[in-house]
């Protein structure tokens, strides 16, 4: 079995894993990071979104071994020193989640949207969310939360 080394949520990891293990299953089953969810089997729903070297990726669309040497951040690693990330705060503030299942992927994708497009308007935010499905909220409050977090993250300076 190949051995992979990576940093996950700031911690170095060095383990052997089967070559065909998807990154999402590696995170969930091997590392116990069950905040990253599996909502579909076609790479469509985005519930498994994590950050790979700072960029949002769907962790069901790559093998764990492909993340060798990478810096991975999952939803569990987004808050720093017990302080929620502004995007997490915004989701709570704007009631941008209901059942919570799509939420980790949604937040990870949203952080990346704001990083890439700090001044995104509503239309852009909606287009950028194309890869994440939510069945509960109708996206109304998710869009509001992202716009608000963008402002809060100082992106609109």
């Amino acid at each position, binding site marked *: 079995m190949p051995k992979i080394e990576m940093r996950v949520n700031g911690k170095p990891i060095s383990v052997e894993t089967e070559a065909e293990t998807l990154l999402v299953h590696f995170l969930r089953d091997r590392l116990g990071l069950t905040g990253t*969810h599996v909502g579909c089997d076609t790479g469509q729903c985005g519930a498994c979104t994590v950050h790979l070297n700072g960029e949002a990726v769907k962790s069901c669309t790559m093998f764990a071994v492909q993340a060798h040497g990478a810096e991975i951040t999952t*939803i*569990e690693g987004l808050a720093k020193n017990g302080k929620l990330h502004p995007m997490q705060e915004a989701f709570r503030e704007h009631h941008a989640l209901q059942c919570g299942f799509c939420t980790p992927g949604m937040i990870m994708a949203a952080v990346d949207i704001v990083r890439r497009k700090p001044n995104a308007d509503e239309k852009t935010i909606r*287009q950028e969310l194309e890869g994440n499905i939510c069945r509960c909220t109708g996206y109304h409050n998710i869009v509001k939360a992202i716009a608000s977090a963008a402002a809060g993250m100082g992106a609109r300076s």
Partner: protein
Amino acid sequence: MTASLIGRPVKRKEDRRFITGTGHYTDDLSRPHQTHAVFVRSPHAHAKIRKIDAAPALALPGVIQVLTGEDLKADNVQGLICGWMIHSKDGSPMKAGGHPALALGKVRYVGDHVAVVIAETPAAAKDGAEAVVVDYEELPSVTSTGDAQSSSVQIHDEAPRNTVYQWALGDEKATGAAFANAAQVVELNLVNNRLIPNAMEPRAALGEYDSGSGIYTLTTTSQNPHVARLVLSAFVQIAPEHKLRVIAPDVGGGFGSKIFIYPEETVCVWAAKRVGRPVKWTAERGESFLADAHGRDHVTHGALALDKDGRVLGLRVKTTANLGAYLSTFSSAVPTYLYATLLSGQYNIPAIYAEVDAVYTNTAPVDAYRGAGRPEATYVVERLMEEAARKLKLDPAEIRRRNFIREFPHQTPVILAYDIGDYDASLKEAVKRADVSGFAQRKADAAKRDKKRGLGFSTYIEACGLAPSAAVGSLGAGVGLWESAEVRVNPTGSVEVLTGSHSHGQGHETTFAQLVADRLGISIDQVEIVHGDTDKVQFGMGTYGSRSAAVGLSAISLATDKVIAKAKHIAAYVMEVPEDDVEFKDGEFAAVKTNKKMTFGEVALAAYVGHKFPTDQIEPGLKETSFYDPKNFTFPAGCHICEVEIDPDTGVVEIVKFTAVDDFGTVINPMIVEGQVHGGIAQGIGQALLEHGVYDKESGQLLTGSYMDYCMPRADDLPSFEVGMTITACPSNPIGVKGCGEAGAIAAPAAVMNAITDALGVKEFDMPATPEKVWRALSGQRA
């Protein structure tokens, strides 16, 4: 006086775990030595099973057991049930075929459950499932609703012409007379498209068996764990009720699809004993598409009789409802008592007659999906009303006003008695918010850009707060639909509230805590809501039919009353004053004629310490329960208005504005209520524009079996919504609430389709209004 918590947008208590990835959904849980289950599913819509050969699977590394319907039978496990008896109009009981958890001799839809492979790892179980050799004799199939009764295919021996029942409601003769006297008759053929629920968390089950105690534990994605336990013990006979624990931890959405008792969950808990180790199964999304209960799928002819002024004289409806290949848990009630009883809408209709034929087809079972019967009813009534307005050249708001019910209580001709409402108020508010008066100008402006604008109304009603037990019992329900609550005060004054309602996104941990904290005058952080575990909560009927606040929270409210009463009694003893002199306000018990007072926490401590009152007269402790059975259904209602703009070149429909004004009675947390409205509207717009569960007519294969084929609403398919509320407090429960979970899904499809038919200038146009269909409709006009 501290500010009341009722009516405030309190941020959700449950959010922290969800935004930090520390929630616990069923698939997040694992047990030592657990095994993994994968189901062998039928690739055919209809086939006899000649033989199942498990040997090739059992030869694979990691495969532990392969179990079939014969093994269930050997263990005396019974089939799954449908809990609501419907009688046909000739008095005969519905014709229900058997529903084994694993097939016995025959499969009846693509995805039907043939066998289960239990293995050491999910991958080994999957390899095993592929290796099981099933010898099928293919049979012809029928999947379409309209063809079921005329087809030569017979799906269940018990149901000739694939007909489950032929049911009717209302007065046929009076309705006939209304049509004979009508100045105007409006008729429509309507299809309510099949939907696939798609809660984002796929169903999952973790079955365990403890051989020492003989106790089974099923952890699963359920909206109603107690009902699951009752059905699995009393009917399916997995285990006696006291030897079966069902836990529904964090559940990622349900929308009805997680009410039902499915084969997979049943098999996992049963197999745990067979295998002697925990058995875990998590659906892949493809399995959710194939085997979660679908929604809607009606074919309807509706006719409205009106006088010359647009007053409705009568309504006649003939519907064929597709129930799929087996009767799911509540399926029989959906196109009958949850559908035809709502056909009076918000209107004073003297005569209604509805006939419903329910049919078997070679498709996934169809059962309650957000709204369940009420969206179908609203769609019929509101499409007809809009068409009547067009035919009579009346303003669509005006024709509704001419027919609104204004006196309450109002007995409809279809069983229900509306307790309260103000339909003019919600219509007026919606018309204002939607800027209906500016529509003509916007339409003209759009026309200059070669775009077509349309406006559509939907003034809907729903019966929620399911449900008064006596009422549903008389209609054939196998269970009463009350709810239980227990309010448990700890010696330190914090409170646990145990409820039979189940939250899978609705925010009960916040809303329920708001009410209890408000009533007890304590901090909301001192209140914990406990739900979803049959070992913790005494009993419960679960969450569906917008019932949690109206029924579940009413039970909590009554149990809280009892806690306050007992606490007052204890406080009087401790303060040595007559009980009548004790007033409870803002968390303090005050003796009115003295300066003595005790906080709620001090009384709680006294209740448990027991030194200061006669414990032979007052039992120590502070814990009360309530079983609350509502007096009536609740009747949320409102007005949704949709404005669309269509690009004739592409057929793309853009929702430029969607306005919803709803009357949900008393609102405890407006932030959560608005969120429920948003989500409901999104599902309603999804039905109208995007979603359609399609089976191939020839092969019976599900053509829309993934997110590549079944079009889920995405963020850029939807606008932001304009949401408002009007309030008439519900008189039928102690807190005045009506329920808000389904309104959007009920109201929106008719509003959207009325807008689209307005823009296109066509009478009949079926959902979903995909660009292709819209473009073709316009091409027809151009040709």
